[in-house]
């Protein structure tokens, strides 16, 4: 298959060497965890425990509110010490449940899984995924069960796993693919069963040879049969995918280019299809999930374990001992960093996630959440100062690199003048804030800030009008 990559993109130094060959290690059991009720896109969960309650790990402590929301679970066993507002790595304080460990790390009694998971009804599977609190673990944190529930008229043909990991420094997904390819592929099979598709894909950037090898070996073993019957209508023709159709999973090596792991760019690379502006992946018949999400789905369906831990990369010149750690959700950054030899004087910016799309933290009193793919301590030399920017000189570098084919230069100028409606006409809402424009901008213009601001102002205006 010929890979047609997207137009644009940038090549930041990948800086993955420090952790690429380090096996994932389990972090020490934290003494306390701060678990925010909002670790996903959508309505925050509502706490269902009170101060003094004893909880075991896997016990639900927050109930989902509405369709686009997921529940939250205790990640350690112990006693609820507080329910209130605590700092969150998303930038604003959020309601959270604080649990102090009893040191026993016991599972809740009602944790149970399914051996015959591929023969379960798709609705049952979706509900297990929702109840396990699973969200997109690449960083976007969109509830997975919602993505796996496309409306009936949307025929899904491609189930795609995102193993691109195009952000510099991060190696968590790559290590997971190398060490636990089985979990990921089983998770993909569950996703394929839910979506009733026979074609699964795993997109991995070509610089992760070991991950591609491990995943290809595992994908080659997929010879199971679709155990639910499926049929759909398209252009007036009735298609049937009978029970017993063979599932197949292909590993697709992707060109190394940021943002290759962006949903629309990944779909283009794997299927050749471009999701039109203002549309969703399901409009071209694709559903994308992160590889770590697929592994979490397998853990939830097979063993009944909700999403209470994740793998993240702690690295960067500011970290003394870079590591790939499996960390309980709610573990404070300071507890994670102290297990990695601590922070050193070089650290100038500490980012949750990758250096392109992550959020730089003011301090380490914030918890690891479901979307924390890494903690990267950047040095003064490489970290940009967004306060220090100049006028646009119209050089057009941003236009060359924009993966969405936008003109960030014009967008930035319009937004600077408060002309948000015009920015919208220039495709503001198509921007997914990958930051490639800012990365190449010789004037260091904060395009992502501009974009976020303009989108928020437009949303505010719309809310006012209605």
């Amino acid at each position, binding site marked *: 298959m010929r890979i047609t990559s997207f137009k644009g993109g940038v090549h930041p130094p990948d800086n993955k060497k420090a952790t690429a060959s380090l096996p994932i290690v389990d972090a020490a059991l934290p003494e306390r965890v701060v678990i925010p009720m909002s670790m996903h896109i959508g309505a925050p969960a509502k706490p269902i425990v009170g101060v003094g309650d004893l909880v075991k790990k896997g016990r639900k402590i927050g109930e989902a509110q509405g369709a686009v929301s997921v529940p939250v679970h205790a990640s350690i066993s112990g006693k609820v010490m507080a329910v209130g507002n605590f700092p969150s790595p998303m930038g604003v304080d959020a309601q959270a449940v604080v649990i102090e460990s009893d040191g026993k790390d016991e599972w809740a009694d009602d944790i149970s899984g399914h051996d015959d998971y591929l023969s379960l009804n798709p609705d049952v599977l979706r509900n297990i995924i929702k109840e396990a609190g699973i969200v997109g673990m690449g960083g976007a944190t969109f509830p997975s069960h919602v993505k796996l529930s496309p409306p009936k008229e949307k025929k899904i043909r491609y189930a795609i796993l995102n193993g691109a990991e195009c952000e510099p420094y991060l190696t968590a997904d790559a290590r997971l693919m190398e060490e636990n390819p089985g979990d990921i592929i089983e998770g993909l099979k569950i996703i394929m069963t839910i979506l009733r598709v026979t074609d699964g894909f795993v997109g991995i950037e070509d610089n992760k040879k070991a991950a591609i090898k491990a995943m290809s070996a595992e994908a080659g073993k997929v010879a199971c049969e679709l155990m639910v019957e499926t049929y759909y209508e398209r252009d007036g023709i009735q298609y049937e995918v009978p029970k017993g159709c063979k599932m197949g999973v292909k590993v697709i090596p992707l060109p190394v280019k940021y943002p290759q792991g962006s949903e*629309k760019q990944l779909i283009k690379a794997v299927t050749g299809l471009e999701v*039109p502006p203002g549309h969703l992946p399901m409009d071209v018949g694709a559903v994308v999930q992160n590889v770590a999400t697929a592994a979490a789905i397998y853990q939830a369906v097979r063993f009944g374990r909700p999403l209470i831990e994740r793998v993240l990369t702690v690295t960067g010149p500011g970290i003394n001992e870079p590591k790939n750690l499996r960390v309980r959700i709610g573990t404070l950054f300071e507890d994670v960093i102290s297990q990695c030899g601590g922070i050193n004087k070089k*650290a100038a910016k500490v980012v949750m996630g990758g250096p392109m799309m992550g959020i730089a933290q003011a301090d380490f009193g914030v918890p690891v959440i479901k979307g924390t793919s890494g903690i990267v301590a950047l040095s003064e030399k490489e970290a940009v100062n967004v306060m220090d920017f100049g006028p646009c000189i*119209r050089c057009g570098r941003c236009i060359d690199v924009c993966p969405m084919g936008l003109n960030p230069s014009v967008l930035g100028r319009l937004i600077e003048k408060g002309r948000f409606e015009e920015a919208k006409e220039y495709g503001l809402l198509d921007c997914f804030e990958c930051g490639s424009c800012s990365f190449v901008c010789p004037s260091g213009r904060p395009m992502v800030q501009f974009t976020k601001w303009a989108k928020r102002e437009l949303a505010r205006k719309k809310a006012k009008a209605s």
Partner: protein
Amino acid sequence: MDTEKNPQVEARVFRASVGPHISSGESVPHIMWTVSAALLPAAGLSIYYFGLPALSVLVLSIVSAIVFEALAQKLAGAKITISDGSAILTGLLLGMNLPASVPFYLPVIGSAVAVIITKQLFGGLGYNIFNPALIGRAFLMASFPRFMTTWPLPQGSLSLARPDAVTGATPLGILKEEGYRKLLSHFASRHDMYVQLLLGHRGGAMGETGIVALLFGAAYLLYKGYITWHIPVTFIATVAVLTAVFGGDPWLAMLSGGLVLGAFFMATDYVTVPQLKRAQVAFGLGCGIITALIRLEGGYPEGVCYAILLMNCFTPLLDRAFKAKKFGEASAKA
């Protein structure tokens, strides 16, 4: 926090922000310095040909451009940004557009027009509509036509003498006034004419001579990606083709006047030309047509400066006409 107890994770407050947190390291000063450096071989060659007066014109225009930039920004209460290198580049380009023999106040006046009126009054770097150095040149051309059309002939060595000791017309001037045959008679052969033009052994503004040095600098900028082929190649090719169509010598057209300087160093000024590649091709085409029209049919022997300035007016329109193609737009129509 007790830093004694846990020395590894000391209490520090870091800069918080959204991404991206890293950058390619490219900067405006770096771009300006690189383009200036690419002009140095040609500047050096003109100093070699025209002697110390050439050096003094270049130094005067650069220094006055810097001073006027700082002055204008100080008067406007704006941040002084002379360290971004853009005033230096403007001064250098203006100097390259002048004959080496002009009196000392011409580069100073030209810089004032370029920096204060054309650039700062329009909002400073990034907001000017016209190429500042070219407006400076056009102003001097209109105000001091005698000085601006007296061309010293190259001396071939570092000379302390005022270069206007030996003056002559530019090849395009001879072509306009006396015809191709007369022009050819100044050289041993047609081939010799091309070689002399390439090496810069002829009368003209400092940046018009030494085409070989200009091409060397342009090649470096192309290689480094600071400019792309779209405008310069379209510009020069259009002039050559139109000249040939109307019975002229296309090689002479390409090698004479300010075409190479204009196409590679002035019509590629980010601020005043279109951003989109297709719009840039249209811009280059327009520049080429106007240049050829002025040269072939106009009153002036040379038209590069006015061609670029006229096309600068069309930059916003061209950018609007060739809107960037969005991801997924093609499949939306299908």
